[in-house]
C-alpha cells in the first residue's frame, strides 16, 4: 500500500484524487463491455419509474388540449459543476422536442444559464429537422429568462401562471427557487414532473410535484425516454459499481470490527 501511495505521490495524485481515479477508471471498460453486450442481447428489463411513465400521458394530454408544455433545465449550465444535471434536463427536453415536432405540441423551454441557450435551441431545431419540418422551428420556444435565480423563478412563475400550461417538467440543478415555481404550477393544477440531485431540495420536489425524480433517477432519462443503448449500458455500469461500493463498505465494516 505504501509503495502504491509513493507512486501516486510521485505522479502528483493525492489520496482523495486516487480514490476518485479508482472510481472513474472502471467505468471505461465496463461501459464498453456492457454496451456491446446490450447490443448483442437486447435491453435488460428496467424497473418502472412512474415519473417517466406518466410523462408520456401528460404530453398526450397537453397535445389533445392544445395547451403548452414548459421545460426547465434548472439554474445550472454547461461547463459548471452541475453540468451533468443540466445535461439530464437536456435529455428530457430532447424527448419532449421530438414529441412536440411530431405532434405540433407547443413547448416552451426556459434557461437561467446563458450557456444552455444555444444547446437547448439546437435540440429543438434538430427535433424539427428530424421530422422533416425545419421551418417549424420557432426560436422563441427557448427563452433565456435571467441568470439570477430569483428573477428566473419570477419569470417561470409568470409563464406557469398566465400561459396556458398543461405540463411542467423541471429537471436539473435547483435550489430553493424550485418551490416558488412548482407551487404556482400546483395551484394552477398543472401536471408536474420534477427532479434534482440536491437532498435539501428533494422534499420541495416531493411535496409540490405529481412525480419526483430522486437524485440519480434524473440521469436515467436517456435510457427510459430515448431507449439509447449507451444510456442503458451506463445504468448497468452504475449498478455494478454501486454493488462494488456496497461490498467495499461491508468489508470495511467487518475489517474494522474484527481488528
Amino acid at each position, binding site marked *: 500500500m505504501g509503495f502504491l501511495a509513493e507512486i501516486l505521490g510521485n505522479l502528483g495524485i493525492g489520496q482523495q484524487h486516487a480514490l476518485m481515479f479508482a472510481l*472513474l477508471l472502471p467505468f471505461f471498460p465496463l461501459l464498453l463491455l456492457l454496451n456491446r453486450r446490450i447490443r448483442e442481447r437486447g435491453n435488460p428489463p428496467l424497473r418502472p419509474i412512474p415519473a417517466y411513465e406518466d410523462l408520456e400521458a401528460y404530453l398526450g394530454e397537453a397535445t389533445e388540449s392544445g395547451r403548452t408544455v414548459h421545460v426547465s433545465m434548472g439554474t445550472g449550465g454547461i461547463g459548471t459543476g452541475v453540468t451533468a444535471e443540466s445535461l439530464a434536463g437536456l435529455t428530457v427536453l430532447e424527448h419532449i422536442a421530438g414529441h412536440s415536432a411530431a405532434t405540433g405540441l407547443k413547448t416552451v423551454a426556459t434557461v437561467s444559464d*446563458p450557456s444552455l441557450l444555444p*444547446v437547448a435551441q439546437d435540440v429543438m431545431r434538430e427535433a424539427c429537422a428530424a421530422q422533416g419540418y425545419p421551418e417549424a422551428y420557432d426560436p422563441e420556444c427557448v427563452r433565456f429568462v435571467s441568470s439570477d435565480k430569483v428573477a428566473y423563478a419570477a419569470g417561470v412563475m409568470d409563464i406557469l401562471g398566465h400561459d396556458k400550461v398543461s405540463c411542467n417538467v423541471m429537471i436539473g440543478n435547483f435550489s430553493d427557487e424550485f418551490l416558488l415555481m412548482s407551487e404556482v404550477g400546483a395551484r394552477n393544477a398543472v401536471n408536474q414532473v420534477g427532479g434534482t440531485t440536491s*437532498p435539501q431540495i428533494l*422534499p420541495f420536489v416531493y411535496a409540490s410535484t405529481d412525480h419526483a425524480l430522486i*437524485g440519480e433517477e434524473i440521469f436515467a432519462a436517456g435510457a427510459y425516454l430515448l431507449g*439509447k443503448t*449507451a444510456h442503458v449500458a451506463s445504468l448497468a455500469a452504475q449498478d455494478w459499481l454501486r454493488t462494488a461500493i456496497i461490498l467495499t463498505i461491508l468489508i470495511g465494516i467487518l475489517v474494522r470490527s474484527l481488528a
Partner: protein
Amino acid sequence: MRRLGRAVAVGVRRSLPMAMAMAIGALMLIDFFFDERHINALGGFFLESAVIVVAFALLLGLLNVLVVHLRRIIKREGGWFYSIALLAMALMVMVAGIPGPDNSAVVWIFDYIQFPLQAATFSLLAFFVATAAYRGLRLRSLEAVAFVLTAVVVLIGQVPVGRVLGDVVPALKDWILNVPSTAGVRGIIIGVALGTIATGVRVLMGFDRPYGGEGGGTQ
C-alpha cells in the same frame, strides 16, 4: 466528386466537434488528476476560454430576451406592457452601466430596486413552504404515511414541548436525523456521483454528443 466532397464535409461537421470535445475533456481530466506544469497551463487556458465563450452566450441571452419581448409587444400578446417595462429597464441599466459597474446610478438601481425585489420574491417562500407541507402531508399512500409520521416526530422533538413529553421523542428525533436520514442522504449522494461520472464518461467516449452541431444529441 462533388458528392464525395459533400459527404466528407458532413462527416467532418459531425465528427470534428465530437473529437474536440473528447480530446479537451480527456485533457481536463488529466489536468485534474496529475500535477504536470504544461498540462496544467493548457487546462487553465481552456478554462479561461470557456469563461469567454460563456460571456458571448450572455450576449446571445440578451438578444433572446429582446426578440421574445419585442415580438410580444408587436403582437400585443397578454401582458405586453410588462415587456415594455422590461425593455425600458434593461436599456436604462445598460446606459447607466456604460461608465462602469461601480457607477453610482448602477449601484443605486441594484440597492434600491433589484435587491428589495429579490427579497420580496424570496419572502414568498415561507408561505409556499406552508402550502407545500400541507400538500406533502396528505395521506395519499403508505409512503406518505411514513413521511407524515417522521415529520410529526421530528417536529415535536425539535420544539420545547417535546422535552416536556419526556426523553423518548427527542431521542427518536435524533435517531431519525442521524441514522435513516443520514443514510438516505449518503445513498442519494453516492448514486448522484455515479450518475455524474457515467454522464461524463459517455461524453468522453463519444457515446453522447449533447453539445449541438449537425447530428447533435445522444446516440
